[in-house]
């Protein structure tokens, strides 16, 4: 126990004496927590549309103003040449072309039907299909209005109406940042924790101080604990700053559920995560190697964590990776407790899994760390 205290004192002195590392540890994550949620937004809005109106009739005008008033579309270009509009697509200035043919109004009234042409830049498939669907919806609504203009509504109401009353729980204003900020906070705590722990032991190897440690009667578990606890505390501090300052003050996010539950899970998560970092460190010979390996593993952990794309939509093999990844569970728990107020009962399964991860990685790291070669 006393040995451990001496180890801890030494680690803290070293960390707080490193003036180039400290801002990286505390300031960088906070700056990123301020910037990333603003940028990491999948919501499709502000779709640039080029309209080619060959008709120039009251109807075409009405349709165009419906589209621009919808809030989804920004009129990038208006003209009567399809080629000019296509040029806009090629230059990425426009995402979508709506071409209204000559005689649109006349044909619709006289012949009961008329076509509209839509061309979508589909390089980004998600955006294209959503943009197309939005536009289609606006056109259908406009169509219904036109119909009502011409038909007596009492005589003609053949469709039974199913009214949909939709409600959105937990986030009634549909604020995407409420969803992203807790996840991004996990991401940042993970990055800092993993890199610092991965670089630490290997740094002692590179400068040779580990030899001096290895000839002392220090126990292996004491050494690993001495490395783990400082980063554990730093992880908790970063998390707290992010949760109480950035998330609460800047984004107005107040956890619905129990703070103690969050911290309880964080505590176990950090042990598991730092175990991975220390494991990388014991396997590496140089800091560059540790960095490369940590970067590679972290990239897969983060992409496969459900932070940016839903795990449910992954194919089977990818789900296996996602569910063997501690980061996924913490992001899930964060979102559940912060946004939905889930309680211990709801996440007890995740607690068990995380304890399993923590035990697994740290046992491995202790076994792998050898005082003797």
């Amino acid at each position, binding site marked *: 126990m006393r040995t451990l*205290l001496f180890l801890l*004192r*030494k680690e803290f002195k*070293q960390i707080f004496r490193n003036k180039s590392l400290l801002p990286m540890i505390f300031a960088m994550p906070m700056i990123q927590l301020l910037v990333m949620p603003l940028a990491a937004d999948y919501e499709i809005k502000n779709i640039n549309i080029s309209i080619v109106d060959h008709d120039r009739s009251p109807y075409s005008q009405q349709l165009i103003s419906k589209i621009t008033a919808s809030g989804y579309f920004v009129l990038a270009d208006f003209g009567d040449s399809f080629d000019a509009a296509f040029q806009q697509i090629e230059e990425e200035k426009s995402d979508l072309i709506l071409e209204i043919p000559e005689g649109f109004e006349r044909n619709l009234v006289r012949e009961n039907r008329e076509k509209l042409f839509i061309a979508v830049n589909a390089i980004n498939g998600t955006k294209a299909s959503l943009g197309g669907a939005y536009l289609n919806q606006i056109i259908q609504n406009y169509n219904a209005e036109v119909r009502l203009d011409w038909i007596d509504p009492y005589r003609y109401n053949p469709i039974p109406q199913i009214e949909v009353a939709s409600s959105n729980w937990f986030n009634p204003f549909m604020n995407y940042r409420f969803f992203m900020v807790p996840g991004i906070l996990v991401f940042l705590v993970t990055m800092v924790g993993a890199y610092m722990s991965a670089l630490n032991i290997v740094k002692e190897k590179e400068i040779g101080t580990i030899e*001096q440690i290895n*000839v002392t009667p220090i126990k292996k578990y004491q050494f690993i604990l001495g490395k783990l606890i400082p980063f554990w505390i730093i992880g908790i501090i970063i998390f707290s700053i992010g949760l109480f300052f950035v998330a609460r003050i800047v984004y107005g996010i107040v956890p619905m559920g129990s703070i103690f539950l969050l911290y309880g899970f964080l505590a176990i998560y950090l042990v598991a995560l730092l175990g991975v970092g220390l494991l990388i460190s014991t396997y590496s010979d140089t800091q560059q190697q540790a960095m490369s390996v940590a970067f590679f593993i972290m990239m897969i952990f983060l992409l496969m964590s459900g932070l940016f794309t839903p795990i449910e939509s992954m194919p089977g093999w990818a789900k296996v990776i996602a569910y063997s990844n501690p980061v996924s569970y913490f992001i899930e728990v964060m979102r559940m407790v912060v946004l939905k107020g889930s309680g211990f009962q709801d996440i007890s399964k995740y607690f068990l899994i995380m304890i399993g991860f923590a035990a697994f990685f740290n046992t491995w790291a202790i076994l792998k760390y050898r005082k003797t070669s």
Partner: protein
Amino acid sequence: MQNVVIKTDKLTKKFGDFTATDAITFEVYEGEIFGFLGANGAGKTTAMRMLCGLSTPTSGEATIAGFDIYKDTEKIKANIGYMSQKFSLYEDLTVIENIRFFGGVYGLSDQEIKEKSDHLIDLLGLKEESKKLVGSLPLGWKQKLAFSVAIIHDPKIVFLDEPTGGVDPVTRRQFWDLIYEASNRGITIFVTTHYMDEAEYCNRISMMVDGEMKALDTPTNLKKTYNAASMDEVFFELARGAKRQAD
């Protein structure tokens, strides 16, 4: 008969098909200064690392302070000190912080640590520098500090791997004063060196050539045996047959 503190029997270490240390057998007695000589790459550091429990032997036997080198490495570590060739104190900690840290790791009480550190700082004349980062000290002082830290827990044996490499002659002299002082306190000294004048300070010396131990005796007897005027000549006589290139 003196007490034996290090005893090896055909101790061997192989790396793949390269035999770094080839079946060396010797004994070191309590309280003596044992010089471990050899050219670069002769296998000195490998042998020393095995004796400290940093490296597991391929074959052979050895006991350090009565403990078996295979089974009791952790017990051995409580009874030895080690100073490696490469400076290995924490450069980003101060003098006093390094002393306290290693004292604590070796299980000294707060009282002992305080006494030891006062004594050491006094002995080394580092009063002014005790709150400076070790990285900012000149090499000679770093080495003296590293030695003092290696014996902070009064071990039975201390292993020194080329402790005076790159140090000026005056500092080397002072360093050896520290070694004698430790030896007088009953600590057995096991030291490797390149400097033949230092070899003369030892009670007994051994010579490693190509992983084998070619000679083991007092400096005076060795000079007599090889009919040499100085240790330099003994060294050249023995090392001439070496096949291994210096690294």
